[in-house]
């Protein structure tokens, strides 16, 4: 029985205070309010705490490649719901809404570009497309990027951001681990250079295939990098995970990444590495 009736709307009904759209943005990590223009100038890195905001493939292309150098390949490649996979939602519907939301065809793009004048094959993932999950399209694009680099004898750079294999393509998504890794194995055996950039997050099937198979592994600060998800590990061992578990610094300490590079310095670091690996005169008789 209700004795009193509220005539005015409750406190909870009030809209959350938002920062005015477009001008200011709140850092997800230190909660400082940052001027958006400044954030963009700072490569989407918080100037207070160095938190790396998640950015999409277009922004990585702008940040890492020379202006106007990127020529995308296989832009139109699209996933197919070949299993008619249906959980609470159909896979075909998930694909449709992901395409609408992101304006992308799938979670990976690749093409030829230049980094400080060095021509490269550049591939980059979009976490916003079904969690950057690897299905047939991601696998095929990685494979074609490797083949393109092999054909033109160019270095290969892959920027990963993925929750792992795409469940809605079941076993075929698992097979993309085999497809990508076997192509990389041939590329490497023939002397190809592959630099893997691991961003937040790079996990499961992608870490257990192409992201961990580079000549050089570069992690963005704070990136979650691991095979099993933290929640699953916590359930298995029945205790809380240590601070920083599976983060970039943890992977550096355990020897699985070569370096952690701030996004602002990423391009110049790539240029140095490309200069080293592609310069002639490595041996006395060369």
């Amino acid at each position: 029985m209700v004795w009193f009736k509220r005539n005015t709307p409750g406190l909870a009904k009030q809209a959350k205070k938002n920062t005015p759209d477009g001008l200011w943005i709140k850092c997800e990590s230190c909660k400082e309010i940052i001027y958006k223009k400044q954030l963009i100038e700072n490569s989407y890195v918080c100037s207070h705490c160095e938190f790396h905001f998640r950015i999409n493939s277009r922004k990585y292309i702008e940040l890492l490649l020379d202006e106007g150098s990127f020529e995308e390949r296989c832009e139109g490649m699209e996933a197919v719901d070949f299993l008619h996979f249906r959980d609470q939602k159909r896979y075909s519907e998930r694909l449709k809404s992901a395409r609408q939301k992101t304006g992308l065809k799938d979670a990976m793009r690749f093409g030829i570009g230049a980094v400080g004048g060095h021509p490269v094959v550049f591939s980059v993932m979009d976490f916003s497309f079904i969690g950057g999950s690897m299905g047939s399209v991601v696998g095929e694009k990685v494979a074609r990027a490797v083949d393109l680099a092999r054909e033109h004898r160019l270095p290969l750079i892959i920027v990963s951001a993925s929750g792992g294999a795409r469940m809605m393509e079941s076993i075929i998504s698992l097979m993309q681990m085999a497809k990508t890794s076997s192509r990389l194995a041939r590329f490497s055996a023939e002397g190809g250079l592959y630099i893997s950039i691991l961003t937040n997050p790079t996990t499961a099937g992608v870490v257990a295939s192409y992201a961990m198979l580079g000549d050089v592994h570069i992690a963005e600060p704070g990136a979650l990098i691991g095979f099993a998800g933290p929640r699953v590990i916590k359930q298995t061992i029945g205790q809380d995970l240590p601070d920083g578990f599976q983060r970039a610094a943890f992977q550096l300490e355990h020897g699985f990444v070569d370096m952690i590079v701030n996004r602002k310095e990423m391009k110049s670091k790539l240029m140095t590495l490309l200069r080293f690996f592609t310069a002639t005169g490595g041996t006395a008789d060369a």
Partner: protein
Amino acid sequence: MPDILLDFEKPIVKLEKKISEMKALAEEENLELAGTIRNLEKKLDKLVKDTYSGLSRWERVQLARHPARPFSLDYINHLFTDFTELHGDRLFGDDPALVGGPAFFNGRPVMVIGQQKGRNTKEKLFRNFGMMNPEGYRKAIRLMKMAAKFRRPIIVFVDTPGAYPGLGAEERGQGEAIARNIYEMARLPVPLVVVIIGEGASGGALGIGLGDRILMLENSWYSVITPEGCAAILWRDAAKANLAADALKLIPADLIKLGVIDEIISEPGGGAHRNFAGTADAVRTGLLTHLAELDTLDGESLISARLEKYAAMGYYHDR
């Protein structure tokens, strides 16, 4: 006879019991029951056939996990001679969830490797329920490279509920270990035949499961994720595993249509746990057939055929 029964196995065991009681009775009392017994046996045959041919995907997953199901070492000990187990990854330790070493198969020297589960609690813990740590993957690839060095074919038995999701496994690079294995297996210049005998869970299975030929026992499964894991994520309820099993299409009959496996090995008489000798014979025949085919290829041809095979896997529109 397995002492742990799945629901759909109960009527079969009941009937078997009845037949053996009747046989005993006939002997003791010297009664003429041969006709009745024969009828019951016929009925039993039909019941076994109907039960096991009509299983749902989820029921097959349960059979693949049956506690009495034969494990890798059962096949190794039955089908191979002079198996010499080798231990350790030469980097950190030895993983008992993965066994392997040289052996003779049909008189021929091979390298045999398999994921091993335990039968009782003590063994289960020792084998970590068949869940490998990075050392297991690194031991496996060490043995495979050894096989390549001495030009021996490699036979792999897959049976794992997944790579171990533990703290130490992550510290020692579970992801790197699996990635490295797949990468190295792609370049091995010797025949690689993989048999999935029970569970083939995700990267944990693929980490030793790249091959020229993939054979699968009738009551086994192979998927990108366990049905429970998939249900927990996509249905937010692990109890919907039966729905996830159907959606994932993870049984051999599905996978052969998708071109992921090459042959289904049928399990006679109600499954490997009820008829091990018959199942092992079928595995032997399968291995012999595929090894004979692969023997005609040299190392380079094997590597390029393997590359082409995985290159063809994928469904997409390329407009």
